[in-house]
């Protein structure tokens, strides 16, 4: 008896579902789907409000009946699946220009060059951003967010060790600072990559870029005579390894600590420096004021005489439009709207990525002082044109994954530096041969 009730109830449920769950509401108003990869509630709400506003404005202006379908939390794995299926979103996000490369190669991205020209994107965004938006000269994606690798430090410990961040601009001063910190019982540089192996590539982005920006650019582009297994890169990896061996990098635990551990240790006053990007305000803002004010930011010091300290750059992601979308005009309208000044302040205050435009100074006023300092630094560097190249924005994907996986074996003495760099070179050349097109804007 009980079983019948149970089974009957379930059948009822299921039939109810059949009606309720079909959210593919075609036949109603035209649906325009936007997919983002953020997972936090406040951020999703902000995005949805912004997109809804654009859709409403467009509807009003052109007398159309679009309704927005907003989905969130869709990372690259889901986007890959969707974009190769028949269930493609209209606007979606990808992580880097390298991804844009792959998608464009298979013709999945809408060629937006005409819209870009009509809406004057080139004039609104930074030059480097506009060059990243293109593959083979056609505009196929719109970068959003610009982030860079910097070095955060603990102001109290700096003072205690008698150091001045403004003086730490070259290798000697840096190693001196690290040694002083180690001797005083602090961990010189804190970073943790256990659950986020990408943390190794944060540092390598800085170090390779600091080895020589043109060098990196030419090597990735496969210009004759350039290879990863060359003296400058070897020297850099040896330097990194020497820091690890001396215990400067998270006490030899940089790949054992999780990202949370590293953050906690730094905030808990155990380390002098913390290696992280300009997205760190994300976890800094919820701290209480006392802890926050102890944190300062600077550019990583130079490691040789070739390159001066600069900001290895990345984009937070790229907006793309599906090539098969039926609503090109609306898509272009929305993307153009995302470049508007009026929404950037909201994004900033929510710890979200801003458009790669010269954001008005007033938009930064709502931020805490440390973060404002950081943005000044970043904007200054970008205005100068002195930016560098992060691995996740500019390197070919397989080479990049090997870069941060192989380094752990190098640090553990399981892999020789020669082998590591040679393999990187092999993968790089392989990906070029398979049609990977580097988009590396030249920097000054």
């Amino acid at each position, binding site marked *: 008896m009980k079983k019948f009730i149970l089974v009957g109830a379930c059948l009822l449920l299921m039939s109810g579902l059949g009606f309720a769950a079909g959210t593919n509401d075609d036949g109603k108003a035209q649906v325009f789907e936007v997919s983002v990869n953020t997972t936090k509630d406040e951020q999703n709400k902000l995005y949805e409000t912004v997109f809804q506003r654009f859709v409403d404005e467009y509807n009003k202006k052109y007398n159309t009946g679009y309704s927005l379908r907003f989905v969130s939390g869709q990372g*690259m*794995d889901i986007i*890959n*699946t969707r*974009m*190769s299926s028949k269930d493609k979103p209209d606007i979606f996000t990808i992580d880097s220009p390298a991804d844009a490369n*792959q*998608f464009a*190669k*298979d*013709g*999945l991205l809408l060629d937006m060059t005409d819209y870009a020209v009509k809406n004057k994107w080139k004039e609104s965004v930074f030059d480097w951003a506009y060059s990243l938006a293109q593959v083979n000269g056609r505009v196929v994606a719109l970068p959003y967010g610009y982030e860079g690798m910097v070095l955060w430090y603990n102001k109290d410990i700096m003072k205690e060790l008698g150091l001045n961040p403004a003086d730490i601009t070259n290798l000697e001063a840096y190693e001196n600072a690290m040694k002083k910190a180690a001797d005083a019982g602090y961990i010189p540089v804190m970073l943790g*990559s*256990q*659950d*986020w*192996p990408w943390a190794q590539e944060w540092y390598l982005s800085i170090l390779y870029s600091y080895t020589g920006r043109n060098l990196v650019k030419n090597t990735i582009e496969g210009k004759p005579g350039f290879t990863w297994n060359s003296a400058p890169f070897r020297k850099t990896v040896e330097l990194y390894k020497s820091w690890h061996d001396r215990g400067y990098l998270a006490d030899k*635990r940089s*790949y*054992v*600590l*999780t990202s*949370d*551990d590293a953050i*906690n*240790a730094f905030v*808990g006053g*155990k380390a002098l420096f913390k290696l992280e990007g300009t997205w760190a305000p994300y976890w800094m803002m919820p701290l209480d004021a006392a802890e926050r004010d102890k944190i300062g930011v600077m550019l990583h010091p130079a490691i040789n005489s070739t390159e001066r300290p600069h900001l290895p750059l990345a984009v937070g992601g790229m907006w793309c439009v599906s090539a098969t979308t039926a609503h090109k005009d609306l898509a272009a309208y929305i993307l153009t709207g995302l470049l508007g000044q009026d929404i950037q302040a909201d994004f900033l205050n929510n710890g979200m990525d801003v458009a790669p435009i010269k954001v008005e100074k007033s938009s930064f006023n709502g931020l805490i002082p440390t973060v404002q300092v950081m943005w000044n630094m970043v904007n200054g560097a970008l205005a100068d044109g002195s930016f560098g190249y992060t691995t996740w924005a500019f390197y070919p*994907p*397989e080479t990049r*994954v090997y870069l941060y*996986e192989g380094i*752990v*074996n190098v640090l*553990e003495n399981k892999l020789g530096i020669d082998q590591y760099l040679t393999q990187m070179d092999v993968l790089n050349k392989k990906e070029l041969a398979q049609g990977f097109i580097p988009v590396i804007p030249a920097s000054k």
Partner: protein
Amino acid sequence: MKTMIPVRNDREKRRMLLATFSILPIFLYHFGFIIMPSIRTMYSSLTNWNGLGTRDFIGMDNYLELMQDPNFITAFGNNLKWMALFLTIPICIGIILGFALSGVTRGRLLFRAIYFLPYVISAAIAGKIFASFFNPYFGINVVLKAMGMDFLSRDWLSPGNALFSVAFVDMWHWWGFLLVLLLSALQQIDPMLYESATLEGAGEVQKLWHITLPCIKQTIIFIILITMVWSISTFEYVWVMTRGSPGSELLSTMLYKNAYMKYRAGYAGSIAVVQMFVSFLIFAGFGMLRKRLED
């Protein structure tokens, strides 16, 4: 002993027909949802599919590359280590505690509930909870130090230890599940067998060895089989805790990275096929072993 039934009477024939017709729809349902898509993946393993649009036939190239890929060999070795761990520790704990528990009358359900509880937690949550305990600065090591047992503390998630630490967490989650399976089987043992054994003066260990184990043989075989087969495709715990970092790379994490981060979905497909093939070998090996033991 297998008896060949040369003559089937009408009722048995009817029953066989009924069996076929009852199971067939279930089989077809499963086949359509799981096997046919897997066949498609098998085909894509013969191409250079990048997960998006590029898909050119390249024959066995992926497999040739796989056999020589050091990552593959490491990952496969890790899967075997994982299997070895799970074939021994959780099963022994499950049997011993199952036996002990079936002899207890009061509080049995409470114990069973507590032992089963970790199974109910999802991998993501358990992984995060234990990751915070494995923290070198604020985790278990601090507690061990305070208790004077500092020699026990180590870098739990270093490349050398990561696999075992993650396996530990999965075992914490898993053996309660085995216990429940074993208890169901233990219920079926006729209590009279135990009583007559006690009358003949048998001790606890003898009862365990001569009565319990033979009676639950089928269940144990089942458990061994699923342990072996699922060790090949285990994914969630490792992914959540270490993302398949060096030292804890498994076939499944390698698959995920190739499919979704390196744009090598065809290559990832070949890893999936290898997983299926190895599992099939395990199953076939088991079948042959059973045939041989029965003769």
